[in-house]
């Protein structure tokens, strides 16, 4: 069984927030930012995946800018976890820009999770890029 709750993924750290939960994600590029944010979400929710069989799907999402695309991405993963009990620990971003994301996902059935996350919010959300790489701070309503 894969335990996605075991530790924070590389490039993701928890930060303080009065009422809910927040994480800061850093990555060398946009694709990796989005992938690490997904892994951080799964870690925060304390997800465990079953043993094979594995499941594959392709996602295509849109937004009006980087921030709304990131929110749409993570909310999509939340929905798949809650409704289909599926989570994806292998993520390949096929195409990404500020308005469109396409990704191939591979994962398994969620056997347990420890925290219900109500939603991904826009609170203080900025997707930033500079010479040091890409960053975003994401706050979750729990």
């Amino acid at each position: 069984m894969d335990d996605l709750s075991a530790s924070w993924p590389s490039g993701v750290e928890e930060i303080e927030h009065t009422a809910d939960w927040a994480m800061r994600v850093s990555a060398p590029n946009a694709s990796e930012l989005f992938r690490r944010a997904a892994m951080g979400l799964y870690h925060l929710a304390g997800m465990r995946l079953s043993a094979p069989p594995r499941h594959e799907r392709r996602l295509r999402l849109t937004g009006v800018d980087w921030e709304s695309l990131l929110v749409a991405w993570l909310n999509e993963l939340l929905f798949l976890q809650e409704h289909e009990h599926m989570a994806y620990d292998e993520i390949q971003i096929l195409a990404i820009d500020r308005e469109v994301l396409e990704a191939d996902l591979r994962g398994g059935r969620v056997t347990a999770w420890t925290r219900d996350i109500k939603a991904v919010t826009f609170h203080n959300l900025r997707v930033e890029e500079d010479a040091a790489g890409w960053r975003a701070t994401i706050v979750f309503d729990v």
Partner: protein
Amino acid sequence: MVPKSAFIQSQPYLWEIPADFRPGMQVPLWLFADDQLLVEALGDQSIEQALNVASLPGVVGRVVVMPDVHQGYGMPIGGVMASALPNGIISPGAVGYDINCGVRLLSSAIELEAVHGLMAELAAALYNDCPSGVGTKGRYPLSVAELERVCREGARWALAHGLAEAQDLGRTEEDGCLEGAQPAEVSLRAKERGRPQLGTLGAGNHFLEVDVVEQVFNLTAGNAMGLREGCLVLQIHCGSRGFGHQVCTDFVQDLQSAVRRYHIELPDRELVCAPLESPEGQAYLGAMKAAANYAFANRQVLAHLARGSFERVLAGHVRNTHLRQVYDIAHNMAKVETHQIDGRPVKVCVHRKGATRAYGPGAREVPEEYRALGQPVLVPGSMGTASWVLLGTEASMALTFGSACHGAGRVMSRAQARREVRGDRLRGELERRGIQIRAGSLPGLAEEAPQAYKDVDQVVDVMQRAGLASKVARLRPVAVVKG
């Protein structure tokens, strides 16, 4: 951060930031607090968020901030805002993700003394009978069509299915159903989330709590509500579950493009909005009402299940195990109401987020049996601390769009609470104090530790001294059930 010097103390418990404090503000900010709660309010982004709300299109009167405020998304938790029709906006971020999160209170003639030895069994029965915790499904799975009926009928759906008593509906805000719900405006995704969850408590800060009425301050009101010192009551705190969360999520995302179409400049993206009378605004209002009705039905079903627990455990030990509904109120909602602004009646969309309606005596919206007294206001404290029953006042109509506080806001992050508090030790401490705990998650319990919240007695004192509500009864917990 906003400095304390930005405030003018216009009354002992009223602190104002005038509308000219910052460019773009259309109305002043009014914070109801004592000195300590004012300092706590300045400790996070609450006031900054309230100032952002004051700059939204069509906002009128004032932005009200309650003494239990803490920062939220867009509008702070403990905030009230009114926007005037026709150009005023409606904003999902000024309602909250958990649409119609609220509290229901039921009273009884069961004396704690007579059943003290059964509290552990009662807590276990409530934990077993009322589904709670992450990922839990309810006992009444719905088809999409049936869910849409729940959206249109609210608590009436539960009555039609034998899951309510007739008097319950009249003792619920809006009689348990907002008219004009539009389930067609709700995404299929939200419906899929809501279908299995009716009659579930959820997790986080949601709970069932058995309390004893510790002190009645207003005998007339106490009698009208069936509140007797030494007798048990039950509180239910939860909302619209994944259904409402998804409605908010969908509209916060969808309205990101609407604000561009309507040329609305947002100080905070979580305050995304649309003119109430626009197609987008009406779509959100219709969907919000659908989620609100789902929440009314949800609390109604949980009340039905809890009544079963009381009857099963306590029958034979006391003569009357009946739980009588006192009232059910929302604390995340937007409603079109008429209020006096600058001496004339104005139709406004009142957004209450972490704040409850608190209409005063004589209001026709208050059930007839309470109308001469005022609307019951339910203020749950944090786990292990007191809760309060209050009445709305005429002053609240004049000062806060008929609104009051909703509880005791957080002062400590969940992460800090988990670092500083061990769930098993907390459970032990509470049980040594005579409070039975049934919790699905010990880390989750730690997050809800009493020290993570403000002092509810202090919050309620401010409400009373400011004239916004009057005390009816103080409740003390004897059993807490959490997911």
